[in-house]
């Protein structure tokens, strides 16, 4: 499951970053690191890009880029 699969308002925890994805470096720089909690806040028209709350900031990210962020939902380990 990746961030791109989350619904609006859903909270998840980052499990892994897919380093083969070309955007992975940028994603990590923005603070998407394993163990961090994030929440999808809004989705733009056509459901893309998403705005994600992370480390006290709001970050807009395209679904395509969000696919490299693997997450799990906190209550289903």
């Amino acid at each position, binding site marked *: 499951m990746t961030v791109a699969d989350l619904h609006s308002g859903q*909270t998840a925890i980052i499990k892994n*970053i897919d380093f083969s994805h070309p*955007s992975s470096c940028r994603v990590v720089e923005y*603070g998407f690191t394993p163990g961090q909690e994030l929440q999808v806040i*809004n989705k733009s*028209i056509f459901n893309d890009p998403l705005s994600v709350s992370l480390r*006290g900031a709001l970050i*807009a990210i395209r679904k395509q*880029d969000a696919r490299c962020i693997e997450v799990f939902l906190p209550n289903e380990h």
Partner: protein
Amino acid sequence: MSIDTERKKLVTLVGPPNSGKTTLFNTLSGKKHKTVNYPGATIEYSISSFLEQFDIDAQLMDSPGIISLIPVSPDEKVTIDNLYNHPEFGKPDVVVVTVDTSQFSRHLLLARQILDSGFRTIVVLTMNDLLKEKSFEIDEMMLSEILGCDVIKCDPRDVKEIEPLVKLIKDNLESKTVQVHKRDKHTEEDILCIYREIEVLEKKVLKDLNTEHHENPLIAQANKELVIAGRGSSIKMPDSLTMKIDSVLLHKVWGIFIFLSIMALMFTSIFWVASPVMDLVDTGIHNFESFVNMGLGDNWYSDLLAKGIIGGLGVVLVFLPQIVILFFVLGLLEDSGYLARGAMIIDKPLSMLGLNGRSFVPMLSGFACAIPAILAARTIQNKRERYLTIFIIPLMSCSARLPVYGLLLSFLFPGKYFLSGLILSLIYITGVIISLIVAGIINRYKRAILNFEDNSSFIMELPVYRIPKLMNVFKDTYSNAVQYLQKAGPTIVIFSLILWTLTNFPNRTVNDTTDMPKGDPSVQRLIEAERINNSYAANIGKVMEPVMKPLGLDWRVGVSLIATFAAREVFVSSLALIFKVTESDDDNMSRSLINEMKNAKINGTGQNLFTTATAAGLIVFFMLALQCISTIAITKKETGGWRIPVMQIIIYTGAAYLFTFLTVNGLRFFGVN
């Protein structure tokens, strides 16, 4: 090393976008500058001396916002290369890094990288009030100890609060220079490591203002860590007001509706709000011109000054109110934090055409001027998307075209402000639609035209909403308006001089040898018509007459069109000059030019030169043609070759000619003359 010792010391400000870096620069340099929300908007770094009262003998440099030392876009590459070794100012003696404490862990990444590179560093903690609202505080002493550099809290907006920072900068400047080593390759793993360290560090330096202090420090620490790391802890949540506003402005349905409304409001306000101010400016210029004419009497220099220079500058000045409104609204949107949202909303539709959400701000700036817009495109990381954005920017109707549209529309619809405004909005929208069509076509054939293997991505911080600081926006609008005048003014004067000479010589003296009564206005008119028909300008223009004829235009418009390559707004002033606007009673400059246009006949045919068809055709021409030398030059520089600008010239100017031809003759075919 002798050069190094002679060189003035350099203090460089570095920080992520929206960390208060530019505000700090403004306060330290004492010269008001701009705070920008949009990542990378400070594309051109600013350099200045320190405010005199601080008594620091060093240069102060502001650099564009970056989130890490790994460059992804060309913008970031330039910034980072310049940080390590600036071609002109060398390497910084002290680096001041701003860190927004409300997003402490994200912003500390850059500070850590700077420290790892060995720079003498001062970390400035900003937005401490926002952190306090979440009932946390940073222990700066402890942070300083862990990082091994000076750390200071300060509100960069406050000159009084900045004194301790100034002292720190002084102290650090006196210390011995340090060895800086550039890390060539940072990997994702490196960043992950730094983030892990930061997460540990964060739990140490954050002070919780809420939970009761336990007597046992170990238990107190454990309690605090629980609060920080706990699910939904306030430290992880963005500003709550911003989230509330976003639930409306970024709403899936309402978001796009509000976005379109804001854009529509922006462009209509350019016309509705400006028109009374424009009338005022108009009257002022007219009075000034009659004043000069009366003061200097009837001679050649009075003629040149009144008709050529003041008249030429005047017709452009009339449109300044509209340009000011455009810059003002853009400034408001930027300062409030909405622009990044706009980019997010429009990203998906634009990406379907091969563009990027980040293309939005450059495209919007294109309505003001193509030059800063093309520079702003540097924030687009993907090369193909960046080139495509640059490619279509000239199709955005820039402010230099406003005077031309203004003139032609008031010719077409005299006195009908509402209709003119409506048509003008239509011109703008059509420009955008054409640009999107062009982008779509090029994207379709991208392998042949823009063949780059690149990763397309869109990741962007959405800044906290803030009430725009009107003072900042006003100052920014003012400096933009001044820049516009400084850019357009000299060009207009030079071209007015050239055109005046070309239209008045070689027959300038005809006037004096004739024995006809000079006072008679109709005789005067005849003499002048004769003079201009045999002038150098006419000779040049007649060469291009075969090109202009199919468009229903003559050499006079042709000469004016050549002049537009310096600046489009010159078109109006050169028409005014060529048609020799002679002041008649209390009519103002612009209106008497329109009267001249109404009476102008194509040589020898008695056919009206400016008709509904030809004026509409000219509007089409100005919408499409690439006729700005500065744009061509900057495009060549930004795309590293002539390929793209030459393609633009051929496609846009060719299309402009073709569609003008179709418009003029199409309208005539349907009986509209």
